[in-house]
């Protein structure tokens, strides 16, 4: 990015970057409003309800109405709360959730920062997400939020380990930590996507389970049901969010959903071929202008992301909540050994066949 700024001059280059970031954020936020609605609609449909259907046609404006409501309410800060940390926590959560999106490529060349260590960067930023929750729970100076935040800290740290190993298998196959290169490595059609890995034939037996493990770990990492123990309403009222109201609560919500969508984007980039369609059409792509190609790529990316999000939403509606010891058992005794074995197998395969270089 600094090379880009030097190339285009300090004023123009910086301005372009800032506009890019702003555009990305606005599109993301508007998309998020409808994704939130989708989540509620899917949940409602599974329960044979109608879901939000009053504000706007089919309830499409529901999220915007909610947004206005959150903004207009009073911010209640509990007495004895640590005020600075209390307000810092939701801001941190949302900021980190936005920051992580900087390296996600949504179409060829459409990425804010195309850095060499993109995957590590995502991993690092998502591992910081736990601070927002711990700080919020602690600063509330109340028992349920504190218990919720302790649970979430243990849970997120545990599942990060298996997510890390799953990511390593993909990095090993590609030989790069750059997200754009990881996507480009899956450009040869649906059989080259890492979830199937049919071009490295026997590896589908490893990579497809890795995809599933990544999905389940992403559920746990983002505190989604069935692993929403930090906010289990039957035991902890609402966990770390109990004392939050109005805009701070909105920011927590926003950060949480941004992280969920980020995990969907990550699943798409790492395992489902990113912006590539299931069948490569090089002749068609050559005859089209670049913009059309990029928009088609964006559409594929969005479609895959929505598919992943649909899985997240339907899991929320269908699966009962895990018990805490079962959650820990799943993470440490099943996912960790499995993904570790997968790293061994994949690295053995890469060394034996020499596919990478």
């Amino acid at each position, binding site marked *: 990015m600094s090379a880009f700024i030097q190339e285009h001059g300090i004023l123009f280059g910086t301005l372009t970057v800032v506009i890019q970031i702003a555009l990305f954020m606005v599109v993301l936020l508007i998309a998020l409003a409808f994704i939130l609605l989708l989540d509620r609609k899917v949940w409602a449909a599974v329960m044979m309800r109608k879901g939000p259907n009053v504000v706007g046609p089919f309830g499409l404006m529901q999220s915007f109405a909610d947004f206005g409501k959150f903004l207009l309410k009073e911010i209640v800060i509990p007495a004895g709360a640590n005020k600075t940390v209390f307000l810092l926590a939701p801001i941190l959560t949302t900021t980190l959730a936005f920051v992580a999106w900087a390296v996600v490529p949504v179409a060829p060349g459409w990425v804010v920062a195309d850095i*060499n*260590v993109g995957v590590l960067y995502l991993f690092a930023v998502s591992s910081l997400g736990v601070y927002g929750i711990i700080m919020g729970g602690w600063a509330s100076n109340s028992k349920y939020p504190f218990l919720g935040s302790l649970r979430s800290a243990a849970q997120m740290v545990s599942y990060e380990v298996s997510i890390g190993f799953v990511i390593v298998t993909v990095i090993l196959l590609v030989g790069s930590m750059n997200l754009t290169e990881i996507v480009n490595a899956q450009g040869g059609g649906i059989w080259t996507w890492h979830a199937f890995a049919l071009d490295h034939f026997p590896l589908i037996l490893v990579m497809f389970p890795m995809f599933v493990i990544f999905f389940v770990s992403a559920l746990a990492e983002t505190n989604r049901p069935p692993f929403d123990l930090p906010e289990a309403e039957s035991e902890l009222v609402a966990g770390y969010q109990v004392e939050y109201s109005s805009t701070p609560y909105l920011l927590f919500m926003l950060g949480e959903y941004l992280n969920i969508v980020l995990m969907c984007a990550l699943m798409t980039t790492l395992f489902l071929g990113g912006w590539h369609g299931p069948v490569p059409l090089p002749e068609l792509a050559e005859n089209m202008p670049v913009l059309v190609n990029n928009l088609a790529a964006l559409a594929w990316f969005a479609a895959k992301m929505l598919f992943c999000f649909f899985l997240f939403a339907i899991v929320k509606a269908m699966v009962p909540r895990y018990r805490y010891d079962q959650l820990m*058992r799943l993470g440490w005794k099943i996912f960790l050994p499995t993904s570790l074995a997968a790293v061994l197998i994949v690295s053995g395969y890469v060394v034996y066949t020499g596919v990478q270089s």
Partner: protein
Amino acid sequence: MEVIAFWILAVIVGAAAVFVIAARNPVHSVLWLILSFFTSAALLVLIGAEFLAMLLVVVYVGAVAVLFLFVVMMLDVDFVELKQGTLQYWPFAVLIGLAFFAEIVMVRTVGVGTRLEPSPGADSNAEAIGQVMYTDYLLLFQVAGIILLVAMIGAIVLTLRHRPYAKRQNIARQTARRRADATELVDVTPGKGI
């Protein structure tokens, strides 16, 4: 531009480090520590060592500092009382600080005068570190791994308590259980009971 960024980040690192020891609330101390870790990672990015920076964030901020925070929040210790009398150790603190400062000055003056190359002889510094770690210093790397493993096992052995009275779930047994093992169908004649 890089110089401006460096000074801003350096001031933040320094100030955060001072607040770590100055903050009255131990949780605030840890939060300042996290800020100083994070900003040092930014400094590493500034000299082009992006791989190290990411590792610093993942390992120290994402894992080690979380455990710090966890422990400090759980401890029920009066830190104000604990801190009393700390000031009498100031000569040692000054000594250690001076030694550390002298080492940094030595590295800059005696050792290498110019700026260090972040990734000598490779495209990215992940590759450079990999080359060095897995070819030149393979043995040392593995020894370090074994030491860590031993430390981990030691910590587990020290803290593991087997509690025979605690009820545990055996998932294999639970799923292997069939209806016939647990229930019995009895044809009860009215007025008799079982």
